[in-house]
């Protein structure tokens, strides 16, 4: 089963994602981290096939999370789910999604990456 880590500073958004992707619970093992710091903790504890993260977050932002992924888990795929399409992303990522992003689009993107 593929393991995916979702990172955002908004718990409601994470809950929404959890709801909408509930149908995929049998093929993906999904972990939800509230904020960058928790994400880095979870990344240290275990391995993930894919990380979906917001960019603009307080204290530890998405760029810091991506740095950790690139340095410690080079095999892990990275997807940005950001509130603004004008924000620049430092370094290569595997996909950029702009909020609001439909469940279908998100599922399709993850499908492609984890095939």
């Amino acid at each position, binding site marked *: 089963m593929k393991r995916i880590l979702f990172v955002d500073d*908004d718990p*409601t*958004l994470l*809950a*929404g*994602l959890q*709801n*909408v992707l*509930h*149908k995929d619970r049998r093929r993906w093992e999904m972990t939800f981290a509230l904020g960058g710091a928790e994400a880095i903790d979870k990344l240290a504890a275990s391995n993930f096939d894919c990380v979906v993260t917001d960019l603009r977050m307080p204290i530890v932002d998405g760029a810091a999370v991506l740095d950790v992924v690139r340095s410690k888990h080079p095999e892990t795929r990275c997807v940005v*789910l950001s*509130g*603004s*399409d*004008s924000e620049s992303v430092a370094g290569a990522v595997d996909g950029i999604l*702009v*909020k*609001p*992003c*439909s*469940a279908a689009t998100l599922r399709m993107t993850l499908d492609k990456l984890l095939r």
Partner: protein
Amino acid sequence: MSGQTLSQPKLVRSPTQSVPIKLPRDGSKPQRVITHRYQTPHVPTNNDTQTSVGDTRREQILADMALRLRRSTDRMFLWLLLGQWLFAVVLAMIITPFDYTATGRHLHFHVWIAFGFGAVINVFPTILILTRPGWWLTRHANAVSQMLWSGVLIAITGGRVETHFHIFASLGVLALYRDWKVLPTATGVVVVDHLLRGVLWPDSVYGVGNPEWWVFFEHVAWILVMDVVLIVAVIRGSSEMKRAAGREARLERINATIEATIGQRTTELKESTSRYRDLVENTAAVAFEYDVAREAIVYIAPQAARLFDCGVEQLANQRFLESMIHPDDRVSLFGELIARGAKERPWSDPLDFRIVTLAQRIVHVRVFLSVTSDQRVRAIALDVTRQRQLETDLQHAQKLESVGRLAAGVAHEINTPIQFIGDSVVFMASAITDVVDVLEKQGEVVKRALALNPDDALANAAVAAANAADLEYIVAEAPKAGERARDGVDRVSTIVRSMKVFAHPDSAEMEPVDLNHALTTTLTIARNEYRYIADLDVNLGELPPVTCFVGEVNQAILNIIVNASHAIADAHQVSGNRGKITVTTTAGDDWAEISIRDTGGGIPDHVRDRVFDPFFTTKDVGKGTGQGLSIARSIIVDRHHGSLRFETERGNGTTFFLRLPLDASARARMQQEAA
């Protein structure tokens, strides 16, 4: 005395002539150069030669005066000589008319002397006086003749002592020539006459046949005394004449100087007047003067006619000028003038107001005022419409930028909640579908339980609960409600995305954009303007990327859509029918075009030339600023070197064509290079 000048002497009058002239040989003393005692007040030209020029002129005047004097004296002598001739003949005929001899009575020889000799001595001077008046020889001939007349008169009066006074009188008359040289000539004639006749015929001179030997010397002595006195008088008279000539020359020069100065000042004044007139009447600024006491415009520069689009003659009509003031500005302007008249505010603050010209142009005017001590207001009015437009454009651009930032910020903030609303809605919709599926199957179970045992309490309770909740309705409607919620979230998402694209606050550089996409987002934003009055028909053609400031282009499109909506609203107000806005995109070799057609009332003929003018509007006060199409034109034409034109038909509507070059920045560079 030598006479090398035989030509007729001429009067010289030209005040400016400076070449040496031939003076009549009057025998006066050689001219000394006399330096003027006064300083010339103003010398227009040639300072160094002025004194010698002045002297030359004085000599000319002196020569003229002398010549006139001598000519008039010559003419006097003509009558004197003729008169003396007649007088001598009459006198001879009275005193000694006849001579009685052996042969009888004859005319006395005195009569013959008077008549014959008189004729002889008159002939030569008379000819000279008539042919060459003023010549030196003429007056010497007159002197000789006049003194011979003394001899004749003395002779025919028998040498009477009293007749000798004629000699003194004659010398006095000759002194009128103011030429002392005629006196020696005259004296010489008298002396020779006395000497010869004193020897040959003493009776005819002295009245006795044997005069004393000294009588001749006594006579000569008296004559010499007379000569001395007269010569002194003549020399004095001559120098007086010279001074008079000097005065006249000086006056002439002062006159010339004054005239030259006046001429120069007049020219300067004319130049200065025309320079000021040019300045006041050939600049864009309109100068005028207002008399506060009389409440009348005293002067207004003629170029005001251009400002008011009227004829120059209409500027004299004050009521007409007042009627030009924009109705909305009238009250505040007059209030401001009253406040200044009452010294509540200073006159020096500029006044800003609008005027509506005869051609219905709206012109923004700024007036700078100053008030004089005699309660006249002097003012300069400037047409500041262009500056106002630039200010408005700038304000608008700033507003657009800040609205853009705000919209981008708002969009960003809304994105996250929209994300989880959307996710939750999707989840609930799907969950409802699943739950309905489960409920239907459980309904079958309840039905079977009741079939086996109609009194099954639990099954009966389940049926009652389902009926109470109107489960049938929930099952039918809940999935639809979920769909509607998803649709709503989708629409909000689209609007938020459009807002972000439309506002595009960070467009310092042109960038290639999909114009169809930009158009679609703008139509989304503008939906509220047209949704209740018109249907939208969009025909998007294939377009290559267009390099432009997309935020500004969106603004131009929006302005024209808003304009089209207002046109339709006005035209369809009466009928209540819905109108239609047709938006089409097409592309050419190096351009892309958006056409926006409305089914409004069309643009009236008389305003077609002015629809792109800033501040021009046909809308009611408060509904439009008159900036929309002006800004669209500025964006498309000025910023992107494209074109904005329209086709209109009364009653059928208007189509605007926005044409953009595919690469506006390249077009701008080409135009700069060409310039």
